[in-house]
């Protein structure tokens, strides 16, 4: 497929039709996993660990088994022990503990009974004897010499066999001579930052319904970001062949990266197998917060050097991500996320560090928000020290095509400069902040990924099309698939039915993650449509009695200059005659997409700080982001606004508060404070379009970058408004008030 240079001549791409799945969602007909009920279904509940770290000496389920309504009980012993080198080892011992509980809330056993209440009562009656182990909760504590082990099964990844360790990953990246550059710099600023764990806060708790039949096959209905992933992990944990499991994707009520792994399905499948009945397993909100996968906390020491005219010459960074009780990729990605500026000299070291807290999971641009909070705060301080406009300083150093990322890969065509220019020219930046408010800006980057996708497009006999993919729609991707298909085929977007099909009805497709669905799955849809257009022209040539080479597909119809006096042959006319011209028209495309275009964002916030209470009010907020090409601008804006709002929550109030023995103290939305509508101004959006040359319509993923800039944006605005540099997330009223007091 050839690249395009954003011609802006599309009929459908770039328009804003109402999403195809909108009606069902608005009237409550959309079926989420917990909405499904099967005849004879049982309800399951967990017994979870009351300790953050303990050996399980014994589990006695006999009393629970004898309780009313109980049909099956499973513990870790009901699952095969995977080898420590197996990629699913950690998930297998997270799903149900084996021998050791590693965090408070770690699942130990599960009960299936006629009612949820019976299951809960029986689960509480399971008797477990524990031998308490030392609890490790902090990064410094875990990295200290002689620290107790968080998890005796953890070995540092990618370094070959080693002793058990509290280190999950260690990723050094180096270019040039950062020490020498720092020594030669006119200005050097170094600060230490810390960030609390936060949760993705998806509204829908994890849920599944599973029917394991007597034939040994399991039918799974589940909420996830990727049902092929659910199939693969569930099979691996159960020790089954993958093909024994069929997963039907339910509608998903938010994921943001948190639903890229599995918690419930292997447990429900085994319970169903044992009981011979379908089993429904739904987490409570408290279970979601205690026992799913929040984003890591972090500690970062960052030093940046610059010349007196604002050229950034070196960055030296140490970043430690607290990844929970199991190894995770978070530490690796931290350093990789440094890519917004041309640092000629760079020395970055990032760590993934274990603690007896829930295993962490991806959350929108995983690990980048922490790093950006630190780096963009210091860059703001450099601008301020040099009396430079913060956008000018960033423009002077902004990465462009060919500049190297921290990983050493050259950037393809990117749109950071265009985003900075767009903010500079915006009404927001051109207007003075409101009375009493002050302004901050910051940049964010996410690299995005491609991965594997499949799409099947069936042309129907009435001239409509069904577009079938395997990407769960977590952000409006069905509408985007339909728009790209409508553009290709030249038919109305509402003549397209976009379908997310089960694991047996569409080709393998990776998880909806890395902002990849519209990019990679969209590319597969376009490829399938292009194959169909060739076939449509062939059929039309046959009907018109002209040479195939003389037929062109124009605006939804085959036209041929050689077809004297003949009308163009519409798609509907061709599909109506399909039986006589060679049978049904259908095409499938599968790919492993390369060339996901990085997406940059620049955010701007005006805030007021109440200097007597430390409370920050956001009075104006603008998000600018490069979408490559916005297939459906409303959903691009939605992603930008959603990322901004989650970032604002992370910046101001969201945090996991643990007791000294590792118990989460705020496992509910009352005290885990995601923003409410009245906390926010309208999030203004400016979409920048610098097309990605690797996508037929120029798409860049837009889902993640929006959460990267808000923390530094708000921190920089607080600095401007109240004169204090906040280095600890969240920047909650008590912390701001304390900083103000310390500054006096």
């Amino acid at each position: 497929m050839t690249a395009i240079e954003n011609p802006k001549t599309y009929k459908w791409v770039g328009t804003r039709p109402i999403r195809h799945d909108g009606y069902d969602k608005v009237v409550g007909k959309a079926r989420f996993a917990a909405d499904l009920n099967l005849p004879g279904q049982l309800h399951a509940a967990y017994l979870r660990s009351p300790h953050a770290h303990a050996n399980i000496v014994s589990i006695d389920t006999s009393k629970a088994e004898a309780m009313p309504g109980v049909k099956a009980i499973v513990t870790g012993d009901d699952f095969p022990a995977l080898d420590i080198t197996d990629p699913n080892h950690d998930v297998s011992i997270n799903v149900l503990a084996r021998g050791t509980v590693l965090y408070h809330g770690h699942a130990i056993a599960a009960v299936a009974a006629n009612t949820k209440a019976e299951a809960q009562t029986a689960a509480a009656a399971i008797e477990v004897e524990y031998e308490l182990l030392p609890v490790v909760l902090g990064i410094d504590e875990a990295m200290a010499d002689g620290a107790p082990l968080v998890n005796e099964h953890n070995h540092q990844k990618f370094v070959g066999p080693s002793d058990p360790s509290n280190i999950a990953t260690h990723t050094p990246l180096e270019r040039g001579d950062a020490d020498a550059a720092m020594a030669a710099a006119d200005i050097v600023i170094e600060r230490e930052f810390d960030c609390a764990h936060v949760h993705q806060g998806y509204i829908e708790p994890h849920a599944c319904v599973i029917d394991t039949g007597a034939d040994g096959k399991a039918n799974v209905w589940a909420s996830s970001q990727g049902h092929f992933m659910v199939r693969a992990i569930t099979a691996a944990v159960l020790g089954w062949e993958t093909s024994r499991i069929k997963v039907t994707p339910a509608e998903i009520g938010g994921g943001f990266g948190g639903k890229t792994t599995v918690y419930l399905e292997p447990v429900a499948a085994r319970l169903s197998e044992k009981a011979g009945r379908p089993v429904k397993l739904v987490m409570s909100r408290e279970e979601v917060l205690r026992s799913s996968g929040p984003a890591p906390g972090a500690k970062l020491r960052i030093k940046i050097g610059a010349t007196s005219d604002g050229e950034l010459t070196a960055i030296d960074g140490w970043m430690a991500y607290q990844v929970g009780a199991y190894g995770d990729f978070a530490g690796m990605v931290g350093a990789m996320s440094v890519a917004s500026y041309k640092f000629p000299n760079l020395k970055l070291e990032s760590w993934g560090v274990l603690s007896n807290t829930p295993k962490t999971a991806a959350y929108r641009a995983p690990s980048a928000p922490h790093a950006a909070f630190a780096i963009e705060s210091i860059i703001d301080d450099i601008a301020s020290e040099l009396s430079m406009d913060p956008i000018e300083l960033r423009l002077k150093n902004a990465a462009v095509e060919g500049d190297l990322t921290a990983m050493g890969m050259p950037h393809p065509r990117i749109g950071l400069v265009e985003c900075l220019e767009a903010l500079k020219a915006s009404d927001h930046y051109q207007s003075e902040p409101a009375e009493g408010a002050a302004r901050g800006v910051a940049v964010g980057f996410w690299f995005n990924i491609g991965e594997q996708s499949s799409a099947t497009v069936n042309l129907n006999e009435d001239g409509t099309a069904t577009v079938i993919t395997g990407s769960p729609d977590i952000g409006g991707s069905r509408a985007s698939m339909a728009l790209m298909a409508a553009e290709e085929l030249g038919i109305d977007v509402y003549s397209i039915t976009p379908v997310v099909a089960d694991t047996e009805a569409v080709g393998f497709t990776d998880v909806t993650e890395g902002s990849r669905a519209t990019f990679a799955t969209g590319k597969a849809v376009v490829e399938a449509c292009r194959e169909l257009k060739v076939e449509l022209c062939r059929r039309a040539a046959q009907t018109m009695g002209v040479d195939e080479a003389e037929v062109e597909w124009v605006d939804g119809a085959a036209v041929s200059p050689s077809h004297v006096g003949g009308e163009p042959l519409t798609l509907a006319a061709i599909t109506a005659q399909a039986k006589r011209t060679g049978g049904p028209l259908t095409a499938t495309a599968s790919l492993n997409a390369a060339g996901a275009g990085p997406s940059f964002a620049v955010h701007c916030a005006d805030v007021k700080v109440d200097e007597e209470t430390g409370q920050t009010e956001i009075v104006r907020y603008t998000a600018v982001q490069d979408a490559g090409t916005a297939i459906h601008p409303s959903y691009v804006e939605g992603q930008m606004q959603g990322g901004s709002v989650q970032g604002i929550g992370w910046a101001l109030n969201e945090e996991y508060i643990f007791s000294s023995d590792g118990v989460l103290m705020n496992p509910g939305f009352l005290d885990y404070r995601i923003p409410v509508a009245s906390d926010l101004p309208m999030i203004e959006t400016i979409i920048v379009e610098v097309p990605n040359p690797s996508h037929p319509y120029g798409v860049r993923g837009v889902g993640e970058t929006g959460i990267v800039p808000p923390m530094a944006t708000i921190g920089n605005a607080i600095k401007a408004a109240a004169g204090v540099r906040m280095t600890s997330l969240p920047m909650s009223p008590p912390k701001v008030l304390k900083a103000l007091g310390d500054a006096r």
Partner: protein
Amino acid sequence: MEYAAPTTVDEARTLLADNPGSRVFAGATDVVPQMRSGRPEPSVLIDLKLIDRLMSVTHDNGHWTIGAAMPTSELTSNGEFTSVFPGISEGAGWIGSDQIQNRSSLGGNLCNGSPAADSVPAMIASEARAVIAGTDGERTIPVADVVTGPGQLSLADGEFVVEFEIDDPPANTGDAYIRMTPRTEMDIAIVGAAVRVTMNGDTCTDARVVLGAVAPTAVRVPDAEAALIGSSLDEAALAEVTAAASAAANPINDKRGTIEYRVQVAGVLAKRAAVLAAERARA
């Protein structure tokens, strides 16, 4: 667990007396979440919302009578009440969301016993009284005497709050309630402050200052009241109010706030509530 819905105070009294372990409720906005989070279920849940006396608001003979189970949304939408007691109305209006407001009540908010109850400080500032029904009839005590500690009430077994009485305020009186929450709404007060003042021109002739969420119960701050009375709410008087309120705060460290923060902000909110109440008194 059984459910009962009496239609008279006497019927409710009998049910409560005859069923050990029973519990009355109004909107159930605290009772149901408590049961779901694992607290023992009562033997009988006695719904008070079908008793007319607990669901009405009246104004005669120089005082207001407010049913203990009446939804706070009815109180906050009562224009006459809200114009006389804007501070009580503000406090009641902070409880939960709009949906919760159609269920939450002054009686429930008080008898849940939370030190952070939003409607309580302003009721105490107006010296509201609680009419309590029990096996031996009815008695009336100051609202300030109902809660004795977190979740602890002075009510005996078999007693429940029927209604509140609040006397008409003197002329040139205003009240205000301000709370601090990290979010703008849907949150629990880290600090709450209610102030009621009566003004004679620019001079404050009477004052009540009450703090919430900074001690085991809502607390009056006599030193702050003394600082206000006789003053014109000048800078010096307000500084004294701030200091007195901070000194009176005796909070705990918890997931919602630190001692240091609550002490500091108690003073700030008392000062701000005093200024707002005085503005209203002069209006």
